């Protein structure tokens, strides 16, 4: 890459070739660089809090998560190392993300130039990728770094394959293998690499095709292991559907790939304009693809196959369509588009004008959405930061007191509470004010806002005892409204949902209960509590809790519940049901009683030496519904 003497223009062009896509990336996504954390980020940041020894570290890094994912480089390791070194300072995380993406852009340019034989094609491919709306979250939301890192592994492995083909040197083949194997630590999508390598060699370097086949073995083993750890889900948003929905999902992802995500633009445009624009860009790409295939360029088909291979793993998930799922697939289309632009530039004026018009159309669809998307993401992180760092200050001013947040809306809630961000600033007792759940849109696939609500009665009791402070979270900074909140007369009644592990609910529990043990509370053989009675006939009392396998070793245990002295039909917990939800039909006579006394008794207990206490079940939630 050294410039020839006396050719400063060439040096400049070379510099622009490599730097310009990254610069444009920085200009478009600068808000991503300044953004903070939100949502899942907090769960990952807290992943290392339980690490006490090297064994814990290995377990967290390499034991598959609930969904069967093992992402030690891009998630667990990335967040744990970042949090250990920089705490809740987001900038270092962002620098790593952007640096990785700059490498990706250089690789896209380099590979694009190699496979098409036109340097300009690589440059335009990198630029086309930069203006695609699918980059908003990978560059703005830390927990989607796995996409950026996976892209790096895929592109680098493919780069080494190309170098191997170009030079015939075995070391590049080995580098490809090493990169491919390491890529599994970034994202499961890495398993598509053999298909990419095989497709390219089959179409463009047949001699090397057989050398790519062993790669499939690794992917097959990975898939088998993944399914063994996390069997395919039959229900919920992650349920896989192998039917006509695959084509519909593909069609939708296609519109997000060549047009803006969700076919949304912040510009005031007639409704027909975006679909028509997407259609025009699609036709342009298809025409160029057909022309190149007619000329015998198999690599054009490879570009399309890259797209299809990279999108294939998410096509059976029609209920979990996510904007950044096209982040990696669109690279293939960008190579095709970049090639088209470069080729058209060398053709006649009309072809050149048509290609520029198509690229402009694509850019005009993408850029406004990118700007709006990065702004939206940035503002969400700012709101999360205000809440988390505001709670940190409130906790500092009121040590030992629980914190109640009022005025939490849908965006703030779903980007903070479910992921336990407040533990990261040392505040482990932060609740939603009663009634907040009515203002928070439901997302059952993520969780239930009700479990964070402190019942009004418990809040009133805690305020009287001076154990609670109340802050309004609706503004640009938290506002202490404790006095105002306490002064407001409210209907207080015992809650119909009682979380026994919440310290502020302790006044509703009988004296038999043991102390809180992290996120649950054990009971001896018998324990009592008070809670709200049913409002409607037919409601049941649900007990959500768990026990130790030690209790169930000697056979099932019977759980008896009495309400106001009336015994309800007992339930049984058997081996394998260490985590349970039991339901007990409530007598209609309890309706409208206001409150009820509940007694729970278990047929057997166990001891955990050397602890002299008697244990049976731990809770958990008692709920009437």
């Amino acid at each position, binding site marked *: 890459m050294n410039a020839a003497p006396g050719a400063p223009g060439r040096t400049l062009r070379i510099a622009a070739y490599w730097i310009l896509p990254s610069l444009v990336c920085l200009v478009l996504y600068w808000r991503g660089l300044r953004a903070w954390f939100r949502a899942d980020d907090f769960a990952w940041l807290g992943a290392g809090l339980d690490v006490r020894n090297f064994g814990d570290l290995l377990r967290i890094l390499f034991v598959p998560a609930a969904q069967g994912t093992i992402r030690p480089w891009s998630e667990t390791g990335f967040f744990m190392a970042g949090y*250990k*070194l*920089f*705490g*809740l*300072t987001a900038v270092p995380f962002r620098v790593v993300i952007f640096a990785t993406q700059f490498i990706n852009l250089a690789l896209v340019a380099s590979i694009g130039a190699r496979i098409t034989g036109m340097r300009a094609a690589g440059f335009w491919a990198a630029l086309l990728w930069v203006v695609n709306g699918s980059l908003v979250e990978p560059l703005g939301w830390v927990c989607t770094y796995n996409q950026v890192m996976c892209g790096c592994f895929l592109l680098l492995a493919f780069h080494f394959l190309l170098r191997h083909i170009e030079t015939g040197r075995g070391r590049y083949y080995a580098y490809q293998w090493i990169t491919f194997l390491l890529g599994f630590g970034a994202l499961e999508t890495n398993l598509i690499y053999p298909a990419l390598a095989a497709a390219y060699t089959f179409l463009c370097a047949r001699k090397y095709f057989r050398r790519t086949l062993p790669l499939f073995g690794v992917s097959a083993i990975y898939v088998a292991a993944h399914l063994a750890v996390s069997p395919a889900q039959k229900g919920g948003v992650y349920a896989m559907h192998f039917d006509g929905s695959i084509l519909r999902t593909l069609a939708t992802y296609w519109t997000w790939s060549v047009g803006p995500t969700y076919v949304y633009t912040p510009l005031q445009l007639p409704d027909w304009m975006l679909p028509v624009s997407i259609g025009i860009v699609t036709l342009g790409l298809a025409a160029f693809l057909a022309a190149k295939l007619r000329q015998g360029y198999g690599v054009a088909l490879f570009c399309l196959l890259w797209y299809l291979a990279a999108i294939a793993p998410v096509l059976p998930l029609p209920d979990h369509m996510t904007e950044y799922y096209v982040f990696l697939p669109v690279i293939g289309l960008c190579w095709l588009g970049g090639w088209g632009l470069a080729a058209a530039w060398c053709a006649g004026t009309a072809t050149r004008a048509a290609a520029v018009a198509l690229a402009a159309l694509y850019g005009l669809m993408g850029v406004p959405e990118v700007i709006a998307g990065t702004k939206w993401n940035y503002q969400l992180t700012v709101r999360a*930061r*205000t809440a988390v*760092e*505001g709670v*940190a*200050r*409130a906790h*500092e*001013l009121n040590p030992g007191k629980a914190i109640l947040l*009022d*005025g939490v*809306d*849908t965006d703030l809630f779903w980007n903070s509470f479910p992921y336990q961000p407040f533990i990261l*600033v*040392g505040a482990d007792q932060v609740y939603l004010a009663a*009634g907040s759940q*009515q*203002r928070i849109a439901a997302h059952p696939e993520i969780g239930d806002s009700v479990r964070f609500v402190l019942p009004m009665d418990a809040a009133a009791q805690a305020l009287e005892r001076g154990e609670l402070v109340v*802050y*309004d979270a*609706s*503004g640009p*900074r*938290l*506002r*202490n*409204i*404790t*006095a*105002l*909140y306490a*002064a*407001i*007369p*409210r209907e207080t009644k015992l809650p119909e949902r009682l979380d026994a592990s919440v310290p502020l609910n302790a006044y509703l529990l009988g004296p038999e209960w043991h102390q809180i043990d992290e996120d649950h509370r054990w009971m001896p053989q018998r324990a009592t509590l008070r809670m709200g009675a049913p409002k409607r006939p037919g409601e049941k009392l649900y007990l959500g809790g768990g026990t130790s396998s030690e209790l169930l070793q000697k056979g099932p245990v019977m759980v008896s519940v009495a309400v106001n002295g009336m015994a309800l039909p007992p339930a049984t917990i058997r081996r394998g049901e260490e985590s349970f939800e039991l339901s007990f039909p409530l007598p209609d006579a309890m309706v409208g009683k206001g409150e009820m006394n509940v007694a729970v008794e278990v047929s057997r207990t166990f001891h955990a030496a050397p602890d002299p206490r008697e244990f049976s079940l731990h809770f958990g939630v008692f709920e009437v519904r």
Partner: protein
Amino acid sequence: MTHLLWDRRAAGLWLIAALALAACKRKETIKVQQTDEEGPRMASTVHTGDPKSDTQLVSGFYGIEQNSWRWTAQRFSVVLRPPAGGAQRGATLNLQLTVPDPTIARLKTVAISANVGGTMLPPETYTQPGQYTYTRDIAPNLLGSEAVRIDFQLDKSLPPSSADARELGVIVGSVGLDAK
């Protein structure tokens, strides 16, 4: 320079430096954002479009829409501070509400009533869509405390539907107790 970087001794130094950096224990400091600790006073009039009104909108109000108003459910309650001299002269309750077209189209009429400290205030029935003020006098004996809870009730509401999962009553812009 290249030689220096890749010289064995230099590489050893780089390694030691990297390990030392990794071993450095980060000073455990938690960044905090200032909070507004001077608590607000209870207001005699609340504008439902103001996020700060949340605390006084005790129940039955949905989220702010278009930065200016909220839908209510069939029952909704607010807590207001009586105006100065209210305990001697009484006050006027003013509820700025809108009865939307779809409500009248489906329900024909909507009647609103209010309850202050167990005393029912006379209802008002609306038969046409539009903006209204529900105004009632409040007797001094109901305004003796620092905070007065006012419970509103509609005789009918739009039930949850596929278009909107909420039970919808009327649209409220503000509610206040004004001095007489």
